[in-house]
């Protein structure tokens, strides 16, 4: 996969996590889901078309998968995205 394709797949996982969090009816799902939306914006400043990937079992698993992909292409990731990703990973355990 090219770095752009990897980023598109990572974006797909982040979008899945957002969808799962906002739709889970948990009280904290709203704030964490909005944080995921912020992460999506930080990862995609050039309006890249995201990949549509199969959803993982939980938002944490989706973000974990996205994190692993992003670690492979650090030069394509905005530095501001890392603290948001770390905060989300910590919140979701």
């Amino acid at each position, binding site marked *: 996969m090219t770095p752009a394709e990897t980023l598109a797949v990572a974006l797909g996982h982040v979008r899945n996590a957002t969808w799962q969090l*906002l739709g889970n009816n948990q009280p904290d799902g709203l704030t964490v889901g*909005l944080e995921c*939306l912020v992460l999506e914006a930080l990862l995609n400043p050039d309006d890249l078309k995201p990949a549509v990937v199969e959803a993982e079992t939980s938002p944490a698993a989706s973000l974990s998968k996205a994190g692993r992909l992003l670690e492979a292409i650090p030069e394509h990731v905005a530095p501001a995205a890392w603290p948001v990703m770390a905060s989300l990973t910590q919140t979701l355990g």
Partner: protein
Amino acid sequence: MATIADLLARLERLATTLGPPDEANRLESHVAGWMPLAQQTLRAVSNLPTGGRPERVNAGLLAVLGPLARGPRRPIEARPIEHLSDLALTMGAISDVLVEHAGRNPGPEFVGREATKLEAGLLSAVHLTAGWSLGGLERQNLPGTRVSTKRLLRDLVALTEPWALIPPVNRGSILQDLRVRTNTAPGLEGAMVAWADETLLVLGERHRTTSWAMQAIAGNLALISHTAHNAIEQAIKNGGLPAATRPASEALESSVTAWRAAATWPPCLRLGGATTGLQVLTRDLQQHLREAPPRTIADTRNLLHLALPVAEAHVATMDRLVRTHDLWIHGPSLGPSAGYMPSWEREPWWSHQGLSMAKAAQLGHRTLSKAFVTLAVDIEQTPPKPLPLGWPPACSPPARRPPGERIPERHLAIGPDTTR
């Protein structure tokens, strides 16, 4: 930022601390002071949403304040009285807020009664000031040709007296929550104004509307509803709000659910584009909502007041996107019946994937609006005052007497006794 309530308190403070009428203030100083005060009073009153045509409703005020505002034909060289200048400045600030509010097509909850209550506050201060000026001028021996200002002030005192008879406790209006709308205000208010202004621009421009923006706006509206709900629940718990405001809290709870549903876009649906400015303001607003939620009910109402136009614009834009099939869908998610669509394509005419989000946004707007109106109306409700002792008079049916005992005269209670 200062609300109308703060400015009105300043206006009343200035009007009640004018001191005894001072003969040292000459007629010209009074006239020079009354010109801006009358101008700003007319501007404020004309922009109150009283419900009728301002030129007809305020005909009496126009007839008296108009000549005072215009002043004499020849220019005045005297300096205006400082008290009157301060009052004009404060009245000007109030009228600025009212003009800004009038331009935004105020909702029905602001029209009529609430406007009249605020008018009472403004005109009672004008009444006191006119009486003070008149008192000072009465002590001066003015030539017969220069008494028109006195006549106008006398008219103004008579015209505004009914307003001054209303006790301040009966003049509390929800319009007093209005404030100067500026994104430079500190804290949540400034962040909310900046976000709302940018959001309205994004939603109004076809090429700046993206799926990210639609999701983030709906999500923020859910977060705003959630924050307002918590503030109201806390106020009810602390006894600061009557339990009658519970429907507002329930409506906000529904608003959170609806806006959250409107923000939950499936990953197979999108609308591309860049919204960098909105991203920064969105993060800023979310941070303020988390760290500095509204502390008073007035702040909560202001938050909802700013959010409502955004909600309305979101509903209109979402409706357009769905109706005109502007959204992009990931082809394979439509299934094999859709034919060969390998990647992102514009949504075909027979697909309406965004419809559920559009419906959720409509519900969110309705419930948010209901919460605002309920909160605006119920908070002003005071328990009805008991009627004076002995009123209404006890009413007993007339006793039936035999025909021979009937008294043909008028009843004593109706008029003078005929035997008197």
